[in-house]
């Protein structure tokens, strides 16, 4: 089945992603930021689907939106946000920060303008119906050691989070 209206969906999803990303860093209320972050993550999942990466899109939804953002919201509710909403939202170095970001942006533009020629222009089409199986095979064959290291990282993170959040160990 061939995709339909690709430009429309791309621009819609990209616009939602970027606008909600701006909302994430501009809102006073962290809960609103978290909700904007959800929209960014979901539209990125849509973009992954457009790039023929359904497994990454699924993992994005289940892990990022269903796990990490829920964790964020959970923590926001545990801390007191009423006082923070009335304070200054930006720190004293905001001008320097903006400047640095602008320089970074220029760098990106320069790289893309210069480097566009070396991208392969034709996309490789992978069989979409086998995406999960291929990713799985790659994880367990080519990237077995990184996979194990990632599991170790998660173990360390669990222990670290418990130690940090517990009142008395």
């Amino acid at each position, binding site marked *: 089945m061939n995709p339909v209206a690709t*430009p429309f969906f791309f621009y819609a999803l*990209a616009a939602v*992603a*970027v606008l909600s*990303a*701006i909302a*994430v*860093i501009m809102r006073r209320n*962290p809960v609103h*930021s*978290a909700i904007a*972050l959800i929209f*960014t*993550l979901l539209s*990125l999942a849509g*973009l992954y689907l457009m*790039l023929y*990466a359904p*497994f*990454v899109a699924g*993992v994005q939804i289940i*892990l990022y939106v269903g*796990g*990490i953002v829920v*964790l*964020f919201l959970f923590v*926001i509710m545990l*801390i*007191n946000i009423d006082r*923070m909403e009335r*304070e*200054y939202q*930006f*720190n*004293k*170095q*905001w001008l320097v*920060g903006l400047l640095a*970001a602008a320089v*970074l*942006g220029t760098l*990106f533009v320069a790289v*893309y303008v210069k480097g566009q020629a070396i*991208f392969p*222009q034709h996309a*490789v089409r*992978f069989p979409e119906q086998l995406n999960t199986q291929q*990713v799985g095979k*790659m*994880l367990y064959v080519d990237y077995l050691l990184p996979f194990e290291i*990632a599991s170790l*990282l*998660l173990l*360390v*993170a669990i222990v*670290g*989070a*418990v130690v*940090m959040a517990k*009142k008395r160990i």
Partner: protein
Amino acid sequence: MEITTLHYLVVAAALFIIGTIGVLTRRNVVIILMSIELILNAVNLNLVAFSRLYGLHGQVFSIFVITDAAAEAAVGLGILIAFFRNKETINADEIDLLKF
């Protein structure tokens, strides 16, 4: 109009810059952590966009990045709760004591 890889890269770059601005300018640590998530997502979009050109390695790597983001969020928010319990604030510029 055909949507090429460059289109996706531009979106990713925009997200990356927005995330950077968030990390550099906001005081609220929760939002700084969210901005880091934005940056990681921009990286992921780049990886997946290139995986269409160079094979599935990018997708596999983006799964590692998501794992990493989960670990980072868990530890970061754990630190945040520990800090809030001690100082009743989560502003980044008030985290100025090395030792309590």
